[in-house]
């Protein structure tokens, strides 16, 4: 229909009779919106129509030109040459065009003014020459408009938008920002709202100018009106920089405490982001995140926990401080899940620092071991805890078994209870930790050592934890810290044990016995168990004695001292003693004290054998001796019988 009637409308555009013409112009606007190809028909009459005196037609024409320019860059270029004419029209309107029928409260025809300003904005965008032409006019409008009523403010607002969008002079831009600042102080909420919206658009380009109005913006945060406070929040977050970060965070945090729930998530993540970018000190950063977690814990993003743990892990000097603060926060309230997770992790990692005593930066806090354990158990049992939080708490309890000095009964109890938990994740963890207590107790300390600093990258923290769990179940070692030399032995032994020719009998030590063993471990070691000496060989005055030592802290280890004594008259020279044990054992021969056994019971030659017997299999020992005695070279191979049971049980 539009296509058919387009020519008719065009004819009507130039007819006499303003009533019809003004309607015809707007009909043309509608046609262009429906069928953009008709622009060509309506482009030529525009120039003539601009000379109209009738406001209605003029207004329609401006709208038509705006529509044409928005749709086609060619039209835009074409109409740039009418900029001077538009400027003239507006100038006349502002200075001398006062007529009662078109004005609203002292502003002449605000509708027309706003429309012209809008067109000027489109024409002056990215175009130096046009922008220059309108500079004076914009300044004039900005300063002369009466702003006591809404009409004047509407015109002023449009002027500000035009100044911002075109290539206006610097002074003009400053004027625009100041006008917006004045708007912010206006009592009318609507005006404050549009000011906040415009400032948000400007903050990228004219940051320093907007900064000057920061106090007013922060005032607007306290507005009860939700749309206003939302705008103020966005603008405040955009205004945070390194110099005002402390003050702004303070304001934003007090806002967080009182803001409506739908803004909480945005506010919390905004504060955390700002803290990350501009934190002056690590301690302040940790404090800020802590405060956000306590106030709005449920609304923070998922990676906040990972970020915080990484941050705390990196700030070594603040470990004691962080763990104390987290402990106090947790003791007060265990419902905020992210806070509970971070606190549980920290207590697990740095529990020893928590119990140590005083820390200069917080008030002295005397914490007893039972309190810490009780708190973690409370978290585990609470119905408010998410499964992930329970996992954190269980792992923390486990880590504390190595950090605390008391006995681990309570921890072991909890861990074994959760071995039959309905939640599969918890059950798996509990069973693995149980195994750690029982069979691999010697490795527990190494596995539960302090974590190294994780690489920045969100999920790596979780991956490090998960890989720990996986390795635990395979009973292999996590090579984090340089392990003690003893552990290296164990590793070799474990590898060899997996390929044992004779599978060691599955010896399940009685629970009582194992418990006794474990309980012994953290305490001071008693005197090594004494095993009677054994004479294994005698020939022509050369005697070989074995003495055994079983150190209690490593029950699988057996130390044998081979002593060769010569009671004959002649020396024994080139004395070499070699030993062999079954495959399931590991043997280490240390260098002998010498290779000559002097005659007449002189200084004996001693040699130390270290035998590692993790499977507690019966010990079998074969010795081979070669030496020179009485002019003969002797070679002897024999098995040691009658080894006392204490050597291998």
């Amino acid at each position: 229909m539009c296509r058919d009637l387009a020519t008719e409308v065009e004819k009507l555009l130039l007819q006499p009779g303003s009533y019809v013409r003004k309607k015809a112009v707007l009909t043309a606007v509608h046609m262009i919106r429906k069928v953009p190809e008709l622009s060509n028909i309506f482009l030529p009459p525009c120039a003539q129509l601009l000379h109209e005196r009738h406001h209605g037609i003029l207004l329609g024409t401006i709208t038509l030109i705006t529509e044409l320019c928005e749709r086609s860059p060619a039209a835009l270029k074409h109409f740039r040459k009418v900029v001077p004419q538009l400027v003239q029209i507006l100038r006349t309107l502002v200075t001398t065009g006062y007529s009662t029928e078109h004005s609203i409260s002292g502003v002449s025809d605000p509708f027309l003014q706003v429309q012209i300003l809008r067109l000027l904005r489109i024409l002056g965008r990215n175009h130096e020459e046009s922008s220059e032409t309108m500079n004076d006019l914009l300044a004039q409008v900005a300063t002369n408009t009466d702003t006591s009523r809404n009409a004047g403010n509407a015109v002023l607002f449009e002027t500000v938008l035009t100044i911002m969008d075109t290539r206006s002079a610097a002074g003009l831009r400053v004027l625009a920002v100041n006008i917006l600042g004045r708007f912010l102080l206006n009592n009318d909420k609507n005006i404050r709202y549009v000011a906040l919206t415009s400032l948000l658009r400007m903050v990228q380009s004219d940051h320093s100018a907007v900064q000057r109005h920061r106090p007013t913006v922060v005032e607007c945060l306290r507005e009860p009106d939700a749309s206003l406070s939302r705008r103020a929040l966005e603008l405040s977050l955009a205004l945070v920089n390194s110099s005002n970060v402390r003050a702004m965070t303070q304001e934003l945090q007090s806002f967080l405490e009182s803001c409506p729930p739908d803004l909480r998530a945005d506010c919390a993540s905004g504060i955390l982001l700002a803290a990350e970018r501009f934190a002056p000190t690590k301690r302040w950063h940790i404090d800020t995140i802590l405060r956000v977690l306590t106030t709005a814990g449920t609304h923070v993003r998922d990676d906040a926990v990972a970020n915080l743990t990484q941050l705390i892990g990196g700030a070594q000097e603040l470990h004691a401080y962080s763990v104390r603060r987290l402990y106090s926060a947790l003791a007060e309230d265990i419902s905020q899940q992210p806070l509970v997770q971070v606190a549980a992790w920290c207590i697990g990692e740095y529990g020893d620092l928590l119990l140590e005593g005083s820390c200069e930066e917080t008030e002295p806090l005397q914490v007893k071991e039972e309190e810490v354990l009780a708190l973690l158990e409370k978290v585990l049992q609470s119905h408010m805890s998410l499964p992930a939080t329970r996992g954190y708490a269980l792992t923390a309890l486990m880590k504390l078994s190595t950090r605390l000095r008391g006995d681990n009964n309570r921890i072991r109890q909890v861990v074994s209870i959760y071995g039959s938990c309905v939640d599969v994740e918890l059950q798996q963890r509990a069973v693995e930790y149980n195994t750690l207590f029982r069979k691999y107790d010697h490795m527990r300390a190494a596995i539960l050592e302090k974590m190294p600093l994780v690489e920045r990258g969100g999920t790596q923290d979780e991956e490090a934890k998960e890989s720990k769990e996986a390795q635990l179940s395979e009973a292999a070692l996590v090579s984090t810290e340089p392990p003690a030399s003893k552990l290296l032995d164990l590793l070799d032994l474990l590898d060899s044990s997996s390929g044992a020719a004779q599978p060691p009998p599955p010896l399940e030590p009685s629970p009582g016995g194992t418990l006794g063993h474990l309980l012994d471990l953290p305490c001071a070691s008693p005197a090594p168990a004494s095993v009677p000496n054994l004479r294994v060989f005698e020939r022509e005055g050369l005697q070989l004695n074995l003495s055994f030592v079983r150190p209690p802290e490593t029950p699988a280890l057996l130390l044998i001292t081979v002593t060769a004594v010569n009671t004959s008259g002649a020396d024994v020279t080139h004395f070499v003693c070699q030993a062999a044990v079954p495959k399931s054992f590991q043997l280490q021969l240390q260098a002998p004290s010498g290779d000559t056994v002097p005659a007449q019971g002189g200084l004996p030659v001693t040699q130390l054998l270290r035998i590692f017997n993790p499977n507690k299999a019966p010990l079998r020992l074969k010795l081979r001796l070669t030496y020179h005695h009485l002019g003969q070279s002797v070679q002897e191979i024999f098995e040691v019988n009658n080894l006392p049971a204490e050597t291998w049980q």
Partner: protein
Amino acid sequence: MQFMLLFSRQGKLRLQKWYVSLSDREKKKITREIVQTILARKPKMCSFHEWRDLKIVYKRYASLYFCCAIEDQENELITLEVIHRYVELLDKYFGSVCELDIIFNFEKAYFILDEFLLEGEVQETSKKNVLKAIEQADLLQEEAETPRSVLEEIGLT
């Protein structure tokens, strides 16, 4: 402007003018949503509300809410002026307008709106001209209603 709605405090729609073409079902749905949202707002809140990708500018006059939906780049403050100008026109025409006037003379309300706005844009900025046009239309209507004899019609008497 995309559309204008007038509704009472109880949520009854008194006037609707759509400047975009939508199906009836969509119009009903939009109307319901907007009426609900605006009525839920407290009295001290600002007159602008973001809804989908439009801005809703609304003002309450006595028992009627006047709602306009404008696009992102339009000036909200001048839209408030548009609403106010429309109310002034109604007031001048009906003489101290109230909701009842609009209920019983809704076609006149639509005529006045059509004289003031076309295609969502202001077509006449002079109050006088708009009211003059309405008066002329009224006169024509009255003339049409008065019975004329056949002779008068052809101009012989």
